[in-house]
């Protein structure tokens, strides 16, 4: 993943998954009674189904874009010679 240090923005295409749950705002797609499941009209169970879908989308983005730690806590691997390059 290239990160643009000038703007301080990091982009991953996985982030596009975050748009998927917004589809539940398109009410004409689900503003109907039938089919019912366990007596729940389509309007209700369709929207309930978006809860796990939302979790899945956000979860995938989390797993796929995990930040590489900026500082690993280990000492710098650069050798002394490399650090002193300018001195020679």
């Amino acid at each position, binding site marked *: 993943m290239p990160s643009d240090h000038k703007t*301080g923005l990091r982009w991953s295409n996985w982030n596009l998954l*975050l748009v998927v749950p917004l589809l539940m*705002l398109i009410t004409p797609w689900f503003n109907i009674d039938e089919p019912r499941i366990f007596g729940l009209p389509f309007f209700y169970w369709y929207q309930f189904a978006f*809860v796990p879908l939302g979790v899945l989308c956000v979860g995938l983005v989390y797993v796929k874009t995990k930040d590489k730690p*900026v*500082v690993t806590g280990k000492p710098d691997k650069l050798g002394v010679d490399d650090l002193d390059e300018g001195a020679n």
Partner: protein
Amino acid sequence: MQWTELIVFSVLFLLVTVMGFVAARWQKGSTLEHLDEWGLGGRKFGSWITWFLVGGDLYTAYTFVAVPALMFGAGATGFFALPYTVILYPIVFLPLVRMWSVSRVHGYVTPADFVKGRYGSHWLALLVAITGIVATMPYIALQLVGLEAVLRSMGLNGGGILGHLPLFIAFVILALYTYQSGLRAPALIAFVKDILIYIVILVAIVYLPSKFGGWGEIFNDAQAKFDATPAKTDGILLNSNNQLQYATLALGSALALFIYPHSLTGILASRGRNVIKRNMVALPAYSLVLGLLALLGYVAISAGTKPIVNQATGRPDTNTIVPELFGANFPSWFAGVAFAAIGIGALVPAAIMSIAAANLWTRNVYKEYIKKHATPAEEAKQAKLASLVVKFGAVAFIVFVDPQFSIDLQLIGGVMILQTLPAVAIALYTRWFHVYGLVAGWIGGMGYGMWLLYNIGNPAINKAHFAGSALPLGKLSLFGWHPFGASTVQIYVGIVALTVNLLVAVIVTLIAKKAKVFNGTDQTDPSDYHVDEDSPRVKPVAAH
């Protein structure tokens, strides 16, 4: 008087009171005399604590009584709470971690702190802080409405000022342990609150429908009730006029939620970026509960539940629907548990909100304008006092002013807080907007939004102003020009006001840039927005 309920409620209330005071010593830092500690719990909460804390903070007692009440009264429109809390997390997932990182590097405690750092303008920060405080105050008052709904259902339904005494006592206790323990108190209590809520909802959702003939029967009963009313706006489905309102209200509420200061308090108190990200994945568990709870509004229709008359106002209070449903259909002891869940559910957000408002006051008004060189200990002292003032202000609001006024104000508060979105949320990504543009946009959006809300009336309940947030597009006018003709399709006012805000902000920004007006100094660096807990760049907690 319902004694069994009252005793169970009191025992659980006593338990959380003890926890509230003990919390001061829980995960103790070096000192409580610092806002990082008192106001943000030491900035070290892990995934579990954050889940309970933020969950307890966002899904408030008021939500738990008001959403089913709305479903009971109006039907499908009340279900917007589910899409609202589903789209919320994907929307805020990325901006919140940026907010956490930049706040951690610079030691910001409030959203207004960030705005000040980003734009170098304490005036813009003041605008954001005041908006935050004003929008949060009625929200706290509404928690009292939730608490009072269960108290009145338990028979503590006295008239006059004395009728508010139980509420007053509960709030004095809350005020005292928040004063002492700060954010640690609601964080610890949230465990009890959320576990109780989960138990109650799961039992209710399994047990109650079977008692009233199953979901199919319940939805049919609801449909029959709505068909019988003269109102055309209710029903178990949306109609052609309120679909846009449904979607924009869900979207607007989702955009607003995490710019409310109390939500950010919960986020800034967490340990690191991964804690926040994991929570964005796990918090929808509460949304599921909220959706199920909303359906209890329909169960109440089947059960023939009647809202009780509030002796203090003399009107039936629909917010008592869920408590009444529980009271009539559960054994007394379990009804007591359910009431405690809602009652304690009011305390957690009320505590966090008062802390957030106190932080704003202390950091962005007191330290900025009254005592510039306040020490961290003086800041903490000031915030503790402010939290008391805020809470008693909220109680006074409920006791001396009609609770309906708080509900109206909360509605207005949502529209107001949205007007800080460009300064708080967009600024996390870009400094393209000019500080003058942001101020002008705030004024434009706020003014237009308030004017629209003022003009929304509802003849059915005899209210000429502030009767709701659904605006028919036909009423939308720009200096007398009606771009949507006489359309009766409704839209959420907050989204309209935010659009105006952004338009004004863009225009003024373009002008200010053309005129080369100085745009403040940015204290933050692009890399600040990615810093995580293990970075040496994070500011030490509670450093003097």
